[in-house]
C-alpha cells in the first residue's frame, strides 16, 4: 500500500514538463480521433464474479485491437470506482475480483501494474479500501495501492478547455502512467443520468487539492470537467464492471440490477455511449457525452464497431429517477422511479 517509488522508478514521467504532458495528452486525443473515426467496443454477456474474467478481459482487449506489446515493461494504472464504499452496497463500487482479474491480464502482458483511486467522498482512503473489500483483494495479489487523494501532485494544463480551469493537478501515479485503465461500475447517476468510464476519471483528481467532494469540479460544471479531465489524461482504455450494476438513485443510493456484462474498449467515449444504449438511455442526452462526441470519441452507433455481443438484444432499461432534469434521457418516458 506504500506509494514510495523504488529505485528503478525514477519518476521519469514526473520530470516531464507539465505543459509538455498536457500537450501530449491533447495531441494524442486529437490524433486518435483523426486516425480512428470508428472505435471498437467489446461486450461479454453471462459473466459472473466467479467466472473466468481474466479470459473475458483479455479477449475483449484483443478484440478491440489493443496491442499487448505496447505496454510491455510500461506502467499501467488501474483506476476502479471506490467513490463512497459501503459493505451494504457492493453494487456501488467496482468488484474486487474485477480488479484482480485486470491485474492478472496486464501482469501477464509484462506491464508494471498499480491500482490507484482518489475516493471522491471518503477522506479516509484506508477505510474505503476496507469497506469495498479491495484491501484484501490487493493483499492477495501483493499489489500496492496508489492513494491518488494524497499523493504528490503536479500541475497539468487543461487540454480540453470546456471549463474555466486553466489546469488540473494530477497525482504522480497518473502522470507517470503509460496507460490509465478506467474501471467503472455500470450505474445511473442522479445528476448526469449515468456514470461510466469517463466520469470515473474524476477519481484521478486529488482530494487534497479539490476537496471531498471535489466541489471545485462541480462549481466548474460536471460535464465540462469530465470532458476536460478525459482530454488531459494520457492514454486511456476502459474495462467496465457491468455484472452487478446500480439503477435508480445512483451513483450511491441506487438499487442493485443484475446485468452480467463486461464492457471493454480503447475509447472511453464509445464505451460510455454503448453503456448508455444498454441502459436504454440516449447517449447524446448525457451532457458530457454530447461534449465528447467526435472530439474524444464517437457516440454515433454507426461509428462504433461492436465486438463480442451486440448491444441491441442485451438492452435492459435501468430505472432512472423521475426528475425534471432526467426525463429527457429517454424517448418513451418509461422506467422512471421516484
Amino acid at each position, binding site marked *: 500500500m506504500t506509494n514510495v517509488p523504488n529505485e528503478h522508478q525514477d519518476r521519469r514521467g514526473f520530470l516531464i514538463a507539465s505543459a509538455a504532458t498536457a500537450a501530449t495528452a491533447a495531441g494524442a486525443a486529437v490524433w486518435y480521433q483523426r486516425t480512428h473515426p470508428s472505435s471498437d467496443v467489446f461486450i461479454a454477456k453471462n459473466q459472473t464474479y466467479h467466472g473466468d474474467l481474466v479470459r473475458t478481459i483479455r479477449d475483449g482487449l484483443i478484440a478491440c485491437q489493443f496491442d499487448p506489446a505496447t505496454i510491455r515493461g510500461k506502467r499501467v494504472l488501474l483506476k476502479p470506482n471506490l467513490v463512497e464504499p459501503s459493505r451494504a452496497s457492493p453494487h456501488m463500487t467496482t468488484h474486487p475480483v474485477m480488479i484482480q482479474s485486470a491485474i492478472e491480464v496486464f501482469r501477464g502482458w509484462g506491464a508494471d501494474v498499480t491500482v490507484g483511486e482518489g475516493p471522491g467522498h471518503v477522506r479516509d482512503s484506508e477505510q474505503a479500501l476496507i469497506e469495498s473489500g479491495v484491501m484484501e483483494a490487493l493483499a492477495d495479489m501483493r499489489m500496492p495501492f496508489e492513494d491518488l487523494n494524497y499523493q*504528490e501532485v503536479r500541475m497539468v494544463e487543461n487540454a480540453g478547455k470546456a471549463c474555466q480551469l486553466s489546469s488540473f493537478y494530477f497525482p504522480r501515479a497518473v502522470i507517470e502512467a503509460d496507460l490509465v485503465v478506467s474501471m467503472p461500475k455500470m450505474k445511473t447517476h442522479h445528476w448526469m443520468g449515468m456514470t461510466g468510464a469517463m466520469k470515473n476519471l474524476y477519481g484521478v483528481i486529488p482530494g487534497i487539492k479539490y*476537496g471531498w467532494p471535489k466541489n471545485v469540479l462541480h462549481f466548474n460544471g460536471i460535464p465540462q470537467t469530465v470532458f476536460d479531465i478525459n482530454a488531459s489524461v494520457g492514454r486511456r482504455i476502459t474495462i467496465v464492471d457491468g455484472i452487478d450494476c446500480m439503477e435508480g438513485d445512483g451513483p450511491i443510493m441506487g438499487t442493485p440490477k443484475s446485468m452480467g456484462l463486461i464492457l471493454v474498449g480503447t475509447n472511453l467515449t464509445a464505451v460510455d455511449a454503448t453503456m448508455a444504449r444498454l441502459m436504454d438511455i440516449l447517449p447524446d442526452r448525457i451532457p458530457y457525452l454530447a461534449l465528447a462526441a467526435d472530439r474524444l470519441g464517437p457516440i454515433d452507433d454507426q461509428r462504433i464497431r461492436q465486438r463480442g455481443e451486440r448491444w441491441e438484444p442485451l438492452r435492459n432499461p435501468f430505472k432512472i429517477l423521475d426528475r425534471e432534469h432526467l426525463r429527457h434521457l429517454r424517448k418513451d418516458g418509461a422506467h422512471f422511479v421516484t
Partner: protein
Amino acid sequence: MISIVSSPPMPSKANQSLSSNQPDRTDLVLADWKAQQIKRLRAKPTIGYAAGEPVAAEPVAFAALAAVAYEQMDAAISACDCLRQAQNPDGSVAVNLDAIGPYWTTSLSCIAWRQLEIRQRIQAGEKYRTAYKRGLDFLLSLEGERISRTEATGHNTQLVGWPWVEGTHSWLEPTAMALLAMRHCGASEHPRAQEAAELLIDRQIESGGANYGNTIVLGQTLVPHVMPSAMSVVALHHIESLSDPLGPTIRYLQNELNRPMAAVSLAWTIHALVSVGLSQQQRFDMEFDWPLRSAINRLHRIEDNPHRQNLLLLSASLADSPLLNMSKMKLSTKASSNRKSQETS
C-alpha cells in the same frame, strides 16, 4: 465492547494502559508499540501523508499534537516551526506548505501552535501565539459559498462554514476543523464559531452519524460515515445548551467501533467517544484495546505510514490528547433558538 456505566473514572494519563481491565500481555504490546512510535516521532516529526511523500501540513500538525501529548517538546517545536515557516503573509497554511493552497490546513496548524504555546514558557510561546492569531484572521476571512436552497438538498445551504477550497460550498469536515481551531484559540464566542456549530448540527443525519456533508439528496437520506461523524462530535463536545443533539451520532460511532475501522477514522472515533465521556455525566467505560490493536496490525501489514501511526498514537493518549484540550463553549441564544426551531419543525 463499550458499556455505559455510571461515572467510572476516566483514564487520565497519556502513558496509562489503554485497558486497565485487561492487564495481560496485550497491554505490553501496546506499550511497546507506543514506545516505538514515540521514538520514531522524535526522530522525524516533519512528514508527509505516506512514507516517501512530500512533507504536508496536516501530517505535520498531527505530529506536533502527538509530540505534545507525549511531551516530546523538541519534536513538537520542530513540527510547529515547520508550519510557521510555511505560513503565508495572509496567515494561511496550505496543504502542501506552499503559497498555492488550498488552505484548509490552517485550522490544524492553529491548533498545533496553540497547544505548543500552552506547554511553552510565556516568552517562548509568543511566536506561536502570533502565528495562530494570524491563522485565525485568515480563517475568518474565508467563507463557504451559500447555494440556493432547493428541494434537492436536505441541509441548510445558507449556513456559512468553511469550504475545502475557496469559492466552493461549506462542508462538514473543514468546518469541524475550523471550529476546533477557533475553540482552541479562544474564539468560541465569535459568530462564525457559533454558525459553524449550527452547521455541524444541521448536517447530522436524523438516524445518527454524518455523511461527508449532505443529509438528504433528492429525497433520499444519505448514509453516515465514521470520520465526519467523529469529527462532528469532537468539534461539538463540551458545548453547553445542547441537550442531546449528537446522541444518535454517538450511538452510531459506538456501533461502528465493533467493525473493522481504519487508522484515521479510528483515531477520530476514539477522540469523539473520549470527549463524550468528558462531557457527559453518564460516562462510558471505554475499552479501545481491540480496535487499536486491530488498526495497528492492519497498518503494519499494508504499509509503514507515520502519519496514520501518529494519529493512532495521539488517540491512544485518550483524555490527555491535546486535541481535546478546550474549554467549554456556549451556544448563543440565536444559535440555540435556531436549533430548537429546527428540532420542532
